[in-house]
């Protein structure tokens, strides 16, 4: 079985500020990490490999630094890593990203299963997985909270708003996993060392045979027109103060007045 797992490097913080002069995001000094949901996807891939035997190919589109996320994926048990990196890929929305990822999937070829994290914590779109599946014309399973492969099908539990489902899709198929699917392992030092010897490839637009009018900014129908600080709403906040016991008593009084106790 050949599994492709798509990962993204994201800023290791929630607390991003706007540069008051330029209105741009201030990225300086912000560390990066492997998107946490993608760690679940890597773990799912490695568990399937351990259970049934598979080669696991980690793929990431990003700047050269995204190599770090791929190295981590290798240390966690992926076999090969592919960095899709080109200035022509920069500024991509989910359509251009999915186009680029689908080209990489085709170039790697003969895939059985494509794995994605449910969403990236920086963009929160959850669109890249289904869109990549659409480019490849394959079925998808989103919100997968379990995964197994049997007789040429991938079988997953899905947890929806009011129900849960068990579904199956014939391979090749794409699956986007939730955090509940597993607990990602930590890379062992020995595996971090071994990871350095695993094959790593860097592909640019030319390597992928990409039409650069469909990648990056030119290939992105959507764009950010404005970034805004959230409007300050001036709620008429009533503050409790004093010692912990005094505050507790004031809150309890309020709860009593509201007939909650």
């Amino acid at each position, binding site marked *: 079985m050949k599994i492709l797992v798509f990962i993204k490097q994201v800023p290791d913080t929630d607390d991003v500020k706007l540069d008051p002069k330029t209105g741009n995001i201030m990225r300086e000094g912000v560390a990066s990490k492997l998107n*946490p949901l993608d760690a679940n996807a890597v773990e799912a891939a490695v568990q399937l490999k351990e259970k049934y035997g598979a080669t696991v190919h980690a793929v990431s589109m990003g700047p050269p630094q995204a190599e770090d996320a791929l190295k981590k994926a290798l240390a966690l048990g992926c076999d090969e890593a592919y960095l899709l990196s080109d200035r022509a890929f920069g500024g991509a929305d989910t359509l251009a990203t999915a186009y680029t990822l689908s080209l990489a999937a085709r170039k790697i070829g003969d895939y059985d299963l494509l794995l994605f994290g449910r969403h990236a914590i920086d963009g929160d779109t959850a669109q890249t997985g289904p869109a990549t599946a659409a480019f490849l014309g394959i079925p998808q399973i989103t919100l997968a909270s379990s995964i197994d492969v049997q007789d040429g099908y991938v079988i997953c539990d899905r947890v929806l708003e009011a129900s849960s489902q068990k579904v199956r899709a014939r391979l090749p198929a794409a699956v986007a996993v939730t955090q509940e699917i597993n607990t990602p392992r930590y890379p062992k030092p020995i595996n971090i060392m071994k990871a350095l010897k695993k094959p790593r490839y860097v592909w640019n637009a030319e390597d992928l045979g990409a039409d650069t009018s469909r990648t990056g900014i030119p290939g992105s129908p959507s764009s950010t027109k404005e970034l805004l600080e959230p409007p300050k709403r001036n709620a008429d906040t009533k503050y409790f103060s004093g010692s912990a016991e005094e505050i507790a008593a004031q809150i309890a009084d309020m709860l009593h007045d509201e007939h909650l106790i």
Partner: protein
Amino acid sequence: MAKEDYRGIWVFAEQQNGKLNDTVLEILAKAQELKAHTGEDISAVLLGKDVRPLAETLFAYGADKVILAEHDALASYSARPYEAAMTQLAEKHKPSIILYGATSLGRDLAPRLMVSLKTGLTADAIDLGFDQDDVFYQTTPAYGGSILAHIVILEARPQMATVRPMMFEPIQPRAGASGEIVAETVSVEPDADYEVLETAPKQDTGDAIEGAQVIVAGGRGIKEETDLETLRELASLLDGKLAASRPLVDNGWLNHDKQIGQSGATVKPRYIFNIAISGSVQYQVGMQNADCIISVNHTKGAPIFDISHYGAVADYRSVIPALVEEIKRRKA
């Protein structure tokens, strides 16, 4: 074709088992504002089998037209037949805007339409409107929620977005409202490669936060996992449920179904306690419609206080145990 030739505001009328998703009515309400600006008709696009009776509800809640496509292969949702049907309808009618609920179904389907229609799709918008340049924008929290972004789709059509549930109030239903039903024939096949094997109502473990009247939520400032027990005790004393902002779910202390916010649940309780939660926009969009917001945070400038009815600038580790004791004493 020039983008000006695309006309009409479409709302994907998500239904399952003949029941419309509530989000459809919410988006229809917002669509009235968009219509007031552009003068374009609002069409609800209804896919399924034997779903024609739902048109009446769609008219009552603001649809001018219902575009109806009924087919055996659309009887229950799966991505590829729905993708094919919606693609055919959109290519025929050329709407300028298509809005979907940011539900599990909407977020499964819409990205495939983005690809088939070669257009833009904004994820999980919390607001929609037209800006000073007359450009249709979709508002989303960005970068973890400390910033809002106006996303636009300048050239491609239709302009598409999934819209977060519970952001807008449905309009008062218009009694006896009617409109035109445009029945369309679509060419679709069942997906032989995708099958729902079992469906079960979600197991009610009794601690679901959706629908809870009282919620006690912990956030990044919670120092130890064991502190959550005190929060849980407070919740239980008030017949409420324990929830969290994203950091406590990311670090594995609580499951994702307890997460409030942009990438979690939207809740609308009567009372919500925010304990050691700073209050990113991403969190606020999940709980800002609570009737009464009470927040305890040791940082005076925490944004959560901006939307709180009651606040205490204090260490939760002393206040919450004291509150638990106080409530127990009064209940005794």
